[in-house]
């Protein structure tokens, strides 16, 4: 005859029901720190000529520095993965442009120069001009900004901080982003 256990169970009751959180907005905070960062740097100059201005030439560089490391090119023959140099040629935009507060607006053709270190294929900025692209851009001295007619949509987006001195407009912009650099060993 099997013994009968008459003592109380010490096994806690287990709820096997489906758990339904009643507050989906509750969050556990900390502060994630990215393992790698990239600084996107863009700078350049417009040089205007004519009276009134009827031509623009200039140069523009886009570089991306990962984890703050600038390769010593001369010593190691390594380069940044994204280090693009453009030349620019512009003509005045015709007709009303809609560029907010712009004193002058240009149709500018970007050409990647033969001595550019890289092309744009490894750049993280998705909005770099491709070789031969023509962008409509305008300079608004009031807010020290160069605006970009975003891919011809008619929407002018503040693109570069800029200052005009005489016939020269000097511009620059930078942004730091986190970036994922897969461990090469993970691919093996």
């Amino acid at each position, binding site marked *: 005859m099997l013994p009968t256990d008459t003592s109380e169970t010490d096994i806690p009751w287990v709820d096997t029901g489906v758990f339904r959180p009643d507050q989906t907005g509750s969050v556990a*905070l900390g502060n994630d720190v990215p393992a790698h960062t990239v600084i996107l740097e863009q700078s350049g100059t417009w040089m205007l000529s004519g009276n009134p201005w009827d031509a623009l030439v200039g140069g523009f560089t886009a570089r991306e520095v990962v984890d703050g490391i600038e390769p010593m090119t001369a010593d190691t023959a390594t380069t940044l993965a994204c280090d693009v140099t453009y030349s620019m040629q512009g003509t005045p935009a015709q007709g009303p442009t809609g560029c907010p507060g712009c004193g002058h607006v240009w149709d500018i053709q970007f050409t990647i120069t033969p001595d550019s270190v890289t092309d744009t294929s490894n750049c993280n900025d998705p909005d770099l001009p491709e070789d031969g692209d023509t962008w409509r851009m305008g300079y608004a001295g009031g807010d020290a900004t160069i605006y970009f007619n975003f891919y011809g949509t008619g929407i002018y*987006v503040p693109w570069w901080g800029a200052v005009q001195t005489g016939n020269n407009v000097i511009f620059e912009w930078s942004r730091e982003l986190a970036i994922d650099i897969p461990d090469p060993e993970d691919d093996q």
Partner: protein
Amino acid sequence: MILALLVSCTPQEAPPEPIKPTPVVDELEIPDISGIDMEAAFVEAMQLLLTVNARTPFQSLDRSFDRFQPGCPDVYAGIPPEEQADIDVDMDAGGLTWTDHCENPDGGYFSGYGWWDGDVGVTGDPNSSEGITIEADREMIADGVVGDTNGVIFEFKGEASDSLYTVQADGYDRWIYSSLVDGTSTGRDPFPAGALAPAGWRTDLYLYMTGGDEDSLEARGNVYLFTGRMSERFDSIALDINVIGQLGAGPDDCTQEPLGWIGLRDENAVWYDLIFLPRSEDDITGVPYPNDPLSECDGCGTLYIRGVESGEFCPDFSFLFDGSLQAPPVAEFVSSLRDLP
């Protein structure tokens, strides 16, 4: 003796199974709808589902940029490491991702992640006979919350994508907007006081609408409201519907009545399905096509409650083509790194 052995070897018959009493099935109760303006309820549902599209999470994402501070949240070029956010897109996917579990000094917090990407293209010349064409699309995958000391500002979990196509030329205008949202959204930014969905929704709704020289609306999927009730009774919509406006309608098209069906669910999980003209022969179940009473282009559908035919109802969806369907401005699709503070 042999007989005795035979008898003893005969397998014993199993005792007969006791006959179970036939369960008494209560006849399904058909809810009383005499006090409900069902036509108004279906119109309200149609108005609400027009607001359930990808614009909602994208607009809230855009406004949440104002709360971004350096390092909180972290913003990745492309997608972050998988352990940070498991986003099911190609490794080489572009776009940007915010991800973190952080709080800023102003009390604003971010938890989770949100990836987004988009593209805008313009071709042609508005002064040419071909006109100007704009094509834009964007996509979001997220499981994140943006909040502050007053609670959740914006939460989205799931995927949202939409696209816009416009052609404008002298004397010609056409636009197409389509949206697919498969996700859940809450928060006081997308759903402020007075919103048709006061506490948000869960949905898998697909919308496809056209305007300009051709008016039409296609909607397919489900919408569930967390709070708030259509006509103070219904919490969900399920539908597969195609509405054709006067502009661009073919000679055989019915502009008085949608094709397809729309269903509402009450809080007791009873569905009220209003069946209009069949969209195709696949829509016909049980009744061979053509079925004259169901196929009449009269603006009326047949209501089924728990599958029981419960009368004809004629909701007026004409508001759809009096300006309610609007293409989103292309500016909503303009997105770049410059948006970030």
